[in-house]
Structure formats: C-alpha cells, structure tokens
C-alpha cells in the first residue's frame, strides 16, 4: 500500500479513454463500477469537450457480484455496438473488475461482432495512465495495421522520384497538455518542408486510418510516453524510421526540422528560416536579469527534459533540480539531469517533490499543477509545463508548446511570474517602501496576498525548520533586508557556510562572508 494525497497520473484505463476519446469510430466498453464514470468529467469539464467520451461502463453493483457480471458485460457490449456502430471496439476492466476476473476480451469475442475487438489488459494495480494510453494505442495500431504488414524483414521500397515524402504524426491524445495546439504547430513545420502528413493518430484518426499507417515513409513521435511502443512496432513491421525529438524549445525544434528533412530528403532551410521572437527576447538586454536564476523542473519525461534544456540553453537559467513521474522513461530523465550536473528525482510521490523544492529553494518552479500549489505555499514563482491537466491548461487562445511559436509561448509563460529586471533592483534598493516592499508580489501580477510563509498545511517540515541554526538578532535583521525570493537561498547558504566552518552563531559578519564565498 502507498499513502497518496495527490496523484500525477490516473489509473491505466483513463489512459485508454484518452485514446478512445481522441479517435473517431472507436468505442470502449469498460467493466467498472458506477463511481468510475467520474472519468467522463475529465474530458467534458477539464478539457471542455462538447461530447461524451465514447465509453460504456457496465456499472455492476454488489448484488451483481454473486450473479452474472459476465452476462452484464456482454449485454453492455452488444448494446454499445448496436447503439454507437463503431469501427472497432476496445474492451477492458477497471481496477475492481480486474479482481473479479470476468475476461472482457473472451466475453466480447464470444459475441462475434462483425468488427475488430481489441482486448486491453492494463494491470491496474501496477501501471498508470500514460502507460495505459501507450498500451492501448499500441494494441489498436497492431490490430488495425497488421493485415497490411509485409513479410518480416522486407525493406521499404524506395520512394519514386517526384513523389512527396509522407509521414505519420503519432502521439496527440484527448486530455493532453496542449496536444491539439502542438499538432497545428507541427503540421505547419511539415508544410514548410513540403512533407505530407499521411495519418495523425490517435487524435482525429479512425480505425481505418490506423490500417494505413504502414503507407507512410516515416513516423514523427510527438509524445514518447504515448506513442513510442506503437512507433517501435511500426518501425519493426514496416521498416519505418521515426523522428523522436519532440520539437519543444528552439534547439529541439531545429533538431526536429533537421531530422525530418533528412528522412524526407528535403532542404530544411525553409522551415529553419522562421523568425523566432523568443530567441531575440532572450538576447535583449532586458533579459540579463534571467541569468543564472535557479529553476526546479518536474513533469512528465518529455516536457521535463525539454524544459530543462530550454531553461539552461535558451534562457540562461541554472537547472537546480530535475525530475519526473514517468518511470517508463526514467533513464532518459537521468541522462538529462546528468547533463545539468544534478541527480534526477524519479517519483510519483508528491510529498517527496515538495520536500525537494523546499530544500532547494529555487527561484522558479517549472512543474505541473501540483508543483504550482507547492510553489504557491512556498512563495516561489511557478509556471506549468506538463500534465496532469487543469481547466486552465486549455486556454482559449492558440498556445502550443512545440515549434517556434511554442518557444514564444514558453518564453512568455515562464518569464511572466518572475520579477522584471528593474523591478528587482528597485526592490533591493528601496526595500522599506510601504507599497513597494519585498513581500509584495511582482506588480504586474496584481495585489495578491504576500507569499505564504511555510503554512501549517505543509506536510513535510522545511529543512530550515527541522534543524534551526542559531542566528544573532542583528544577522536575522540583515537577512530580512534581502528580498524574499532570494532570502531562503541566502539563509541556506549562510547556514551551510557556518556549519562547514563550525561557526557557533551566525553574525552579520558570517552573513557577508558567506555571501562573498558563494557569489557567482
């Protein structure tokens, strides 16, 4: 058992729902009790889809358990088929139904429906949402595309001259973090390169579309969490290479363009020529104050790795912490962390993430909605970079994360929560101004309440409170003159400095000695 306050991912059948809901012509019959129908609201309330997810829940009750839950499942599956007339049926069990072992796959096959039935075995007590989405997509792709597969080991025939290169775009789902907008941004890049899109999946694809995945020359994988297993299978089966760099950030977008151009045999120049405002803004003198700001990054693997790279290479931040809840891609995250000289935090325990943020005292947190709450409690600015999603992650305006426009969106989103350059200086100089003091939030963010001092709700004690170091009153006063957004770091550094030198009590002298020691 694991004590869980908040979770980064839902159960795997929610992942399966993300695939079914993204597609057309698919229906999912889920053996599950009534409460599990809450999952509909993820799509209709959070993503604000104007239609119900294509899911039929059997909603068995305790009184059915002694009787015929298998019959209930079959009735539900037959009725769903007749009512919704899908091209393919997904069948599976949620956590509770998994325990009663009714075998939805076998039961559905016994109905002899005239459409493909794809059974899902999602190990609810072991796996989670993204894995469930990846597995579902892979199963569906296999079921639909297999009939067109050439004999094993057949190399792809060369493209006839004069025929445009074609690719599939794989990964965007329902309930994804900006997936719909990313898809627009990526199609624009492919357009500029003159590469045709054969199939986009799962978003907006039908089972019939999946059946022609093998036609394309190569695959573009936007979200490895979701599309990698399917793309690997397509690679093996149809000898299709894959582009696996998600184009998030300027550097990654350029690499993506180069890779696509290479596979398509086209000139990357027209796509690379797109002007980037983010690149210029980051070089403008105003952005000097961003230099070396310490950021903590946490999210799914794709977005966390990309964010760390952007933070370091495109904004000049220092990556103080990097982590992910995506265990399936832990190796990739660890490699990325090593490039920033740190150790990755791989966990799905929100309390552990909170403890690390409290300890590192970063100046900016780039995380999920959960880190946003942690940061709010700790009084640290924050921007959201990854799922789990919130209704705010579906802005009405176009706001991709991918491509050059995505880089612009990211620049704005991350810089907005921070103090602007001159404001930061003024604060340091006139820290006793009654309105313009250091407990005030950035003025463009409105008269929000002062950042919460570690509130009683913080479940994990902050290290500062855990082993308090003696401070001389004068030194405490001097510390209070330092703006709040660096005060935590100053306190931590000074205490470390004092501890290393066995200074018994921190004085004003110690404070400035430490400052000199750590100044960058």
């Amino acid at each position, binding site marked *: 058992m694991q*004590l869980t306050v908040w979770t980064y991912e839902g159960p795997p059948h929610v992942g399966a729902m993300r695939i079914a809901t993204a597609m057309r012509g698919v229906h999912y019959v889920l053996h599950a009790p009534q*409460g599990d129908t809450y999952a509909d*609201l*993820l799509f209709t309330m959070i993503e*604000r889809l104007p239609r119900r997810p294509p899911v039929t*829940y059997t909603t068995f*009750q305790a009184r059915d358990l002694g009787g015929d839950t298998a019959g209930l499942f079959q009735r*539900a599956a037959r009725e769903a088929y007749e009512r919704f007339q899908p091209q393919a049926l997904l069948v599976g069990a949620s956590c509770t139904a998994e325990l009663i072992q009714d075998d939805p796959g076998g039961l559905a096959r016994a109905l002899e429906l005239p459409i493909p039935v794809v059974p899902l075995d999602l190990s609810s*007590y072991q796996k989670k949402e993204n894995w469930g989405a990846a597995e579902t997509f892979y199963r569906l792709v296999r079921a639909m595309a297999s009939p067109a597969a050439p004999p094993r080991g057949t190399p792809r025939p060369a493209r006839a001259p004069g025929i445009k290169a074609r690719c599939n775009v794989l990964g965007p789902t329902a309930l994804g973090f900006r997936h719909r907008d990313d898809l627009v941004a990526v199609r624009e890049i492919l357009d500029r390169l003159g590469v045709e899109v054969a199939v986009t999946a799962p978003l907006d694809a039908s089972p019939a579309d999946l059946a022609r995945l093998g036609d394309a020359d190569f695959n573009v994988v936007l979200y490895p969490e979701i599309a990698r297993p399917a793309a690997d299978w397509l690679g093996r089966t149809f000898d299709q290479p894959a582009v696996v760099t998600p184009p998030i950030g300027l550097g990654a977008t350029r690499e993506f363009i180069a890779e696509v151009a290479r596979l398509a045999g086209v000139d990357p120049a027209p796509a690379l020529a797109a002007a980037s405002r983010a690149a210029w803004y980051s070089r403008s003198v105003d952005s000097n104050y961003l230099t070396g700001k310490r950021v903590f990054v946490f999210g799914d693997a794709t977005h966390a790795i990309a964010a760390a790279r952007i933070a370091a290479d495109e904004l000049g931040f220092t990556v103080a912490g990097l982590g992910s809840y995506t265990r399936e891609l832990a190796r990739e995250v660890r490699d990325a962390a090593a490039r920033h000289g740190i150790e990755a935090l791989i966990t799905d325990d929100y309390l552990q993430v909170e403890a690390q943020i409290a300890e590192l005292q970063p100046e900016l947190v780039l995380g999920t909605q959960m880190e946003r709450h942690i940061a709010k409690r700790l009084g640290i600015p924050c921007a959201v970079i990854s799922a789990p999603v919130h209704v705010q992650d579906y802005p009405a305006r176009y706001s991709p994360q991918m491509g050059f426009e995505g880089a612009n969106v990211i620049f704005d989103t991350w810089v907005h929560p921070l103090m602007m350059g001159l404001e930061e200086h003024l604060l340091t100089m006139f820290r006793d101004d009654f309105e313009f003091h250091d407990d005030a939030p950035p003025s463009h963010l409105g008269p929000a309440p002062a950042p919460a001092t570690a509130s009683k*709700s913080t479940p994990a004690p902050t290290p500062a409170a855990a082993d308090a170091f003696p401070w001389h009153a004068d030194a405490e006063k001097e510390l209070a003159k330092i703006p709040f957004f660096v005060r935590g770091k100053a306190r931590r550094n000074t205490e470390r400095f004092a501890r290393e030198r066995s200074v018994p009590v921190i004085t004003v002298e110690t404070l400035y000695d430490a400052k000199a020691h750590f100044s960058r």
Partner: protein
Amino acid sequence: MSGSGVERGQRAVFCGLTGIIWLHRKIQDAFFLIVGSRTCAHLMQSAAGVMVFAEPRFATAIIDERDLAGLADANAELDRIVKQLLARRPDIKLLFLVGSCPSEVIKLDLSRAAHRLSTQFSPAVRVLNYSGSGIETTFTQGEDACLSALVPDLPAADREQPANLLIVGALADVVEDQMRAVFAAMGISRVQFLPPRRSTQMPAIGPGTRYLLAQPFLADTARALEERSARRIDAPFPLGADGTSAWFKAAADAFGVDAGRFERATDAGRQRARGALGRYRELLAGKRIFFFPDSQLEIPLARFLAAELGMQILEIGTPYLHRAHMACELTALPAATPIVEGPHLDKQLDRCRELKPDLVVCGLGLANPLEALGIATKWSIELVFTPIQGFEQAADLAELFARPLVRRTRLVA
C-alpha cells in the same frame, strides 16, 4: 404523483467516496483514509481537486500488486500507513477508514482494522469505518454510510432529561445557526446536529430523541438511529419557503409547540423567502425541467420547483426511491409526474434529447455535452455543496436554477 417506473442500465453517478469532499470540511478534526485503488484517489482528486486543493483531510491508501499477491500483509500495511498519517497530522481526533470496491472485493475487513487501530491509538484518536464503494453506494449514500457509522458510538442521552431534537444530515454551518435560532424561538432549545462540527461534540441520543432528516439520502442512518430508540419526525425536506415551513412545523407538532408560537417563530422568515422567490417565479414559471438521477435531492427539488416556482417537471430520475422518507414529498408532487428509479443512461439521454427541456439537472460528465446540444444545464453537485436549505436560502436555491437561463438571454454572440 404517479407514473413511476424502474429502469436498469448504465449509471452515470459518482460513488459514495465523493461524500468525503464535503464531510471532511464539515467535521473539522476528522480525517478520511480511503483504502482503495488509484482510481479512487483519482476520483477524489478530479471531483474535488479544484475545490479543496489547499489542505485535504483525506488521502488514499492505494492497494498495489504486493498486497494482492499476498507478498505484503494488507493489515500490517494499513497499520503502517495509519501510523505514518497520524504522526504527520496530530490534530486528527477521528479517523475514518473508508472502504472501496477493491477493498470490498478482496474482503479486507476494515471494521476489524478500525477496532484494532482504535484500541492502539485511544484515547487520542478514534477510528471508525464505513464503505463508500461504488458497488454499494451512490454519490450521497456515502454520507449516509458515514453518519450511520457514527451512530452506535454516540453517547446515550440521560433518561431524566426532556426530549431532544436531532437534525440529521450535513448542512452548512450558517444554515445550522439559522435553524437553531428558529427552534429557540419556538422554545425547542435542546437541538443537536449530526454530523457535528467537531468529533468532540457528538450528540447524545436515547428514547427521548426525536430526529428530523435534513437530507433525503439517509436511510441507513435513520435505521441506526431507530435502533438506538430515536424516533423520526415525518416531514418534507427544508427546501423552499413552504418546504422549510412544513419541516419546522413537523418539529413544532412533535414538540407540542402551539400554533401561535410556531407562527411567530417562522413568519418573518417565511415571508422573506416568499417575497424573494417572487422574482424567480416570473423567470421560471412554465419552464420545463428534466432531472437525471444523481444526488437523491431530485424529488424534493422537483417538488419545490413545481410547487413554489411553477416549473413543469418532465421527468425525475432518481438513483433509488425510499418511499417512506419521500412520502411527504411524493404527495406534494404534481399528479402524474414521471419518476424513473434506477438509471439507464442512454435511454434517459434519448428521452431528454427528444423532450428538449428548458433546463436539465445532471452530473458533471453530462453537462457540457448537453449544453453543446443547446440544452441549458445545472450541475447537481453544486446543489449538494451550496447552502440551499432553510428560509434564507430559498431564493439562493431558485437563483441556481435561474442563472443558466438568464445567462442565455445575456449572451448575444
């Protein structure tokens, strides 16, 4: 009333775990530990996430493969987690172990666990258990299960004391205070509420206890109270000016309050409520409304909307029908109001689309898809979270139904 029927098919109702969302705010020193799966944790987070992210007094002990494979002793694991939890939250005085579908299917005995842990942590913490599982409970039945778990533990009332009145069902604090004032004006001063605001203020019950239900979904709690010799006062539910008035009147009659005193105690509130409802009557009279089965509040709400606001009831879906507790409500409904017990989601949607109501009351999963079809909706969950009972809230309740319609008249683009 008449025209009731039973349907069976897919439900689109939350499970009883959802009750924790309001119960954990109501009982301020209680903590709810769900023993369940990732699905249960995700349900709580999705249904409540936005509302109570700040400081939840609930969490989930997620059962994993090791527990199922018998590699870990589930009871030992649970003990470990409770210890970890109580160490972090020393403010907790009452801990509920809340059962879920998985814990029930694997037959994890939470009542034994609660007993064991209660002994271990007493007197600092009391540990109780109930089931909020979706195979046993729908949405608001979770509150019923929670309250009925409290009843056997309630202190016994002193036999020498005069009769006392117990109001049963979670209400907003402000509503409780208003009700207490009205009862005091009627001369009924020994009034207590279940659930109380703190676990240290549990009401005492005994043969002299008369109880009045404030919520329509408390069948098991009522049964448990009867077992402790408390007697129910038959009444409609305190929704609307007339509903609230009849509710107070039932208590007045049970406690022998004379008519004059009852009038003096309730007249001002009733008049205020009626006056405030007038405005909404203009907006809502004649409008056609359809209820999907969700919170069990459907029948009392329909009665209020028909009787006091002149709305036309097209269909009332209700997860189940408790005829005894609903008796007063059913007689007050317009004749031939169709009541459908036990849902069949797709058929209900078919009927709803065909009838094209002016307003639909439904769960969160259905609201936007219906709005997209041009049908105005009201989320039933809002009716559970908002103070709607009593005289002073009657107009607020009407406003909740008027708002979606008013909004449509405002939007031009």
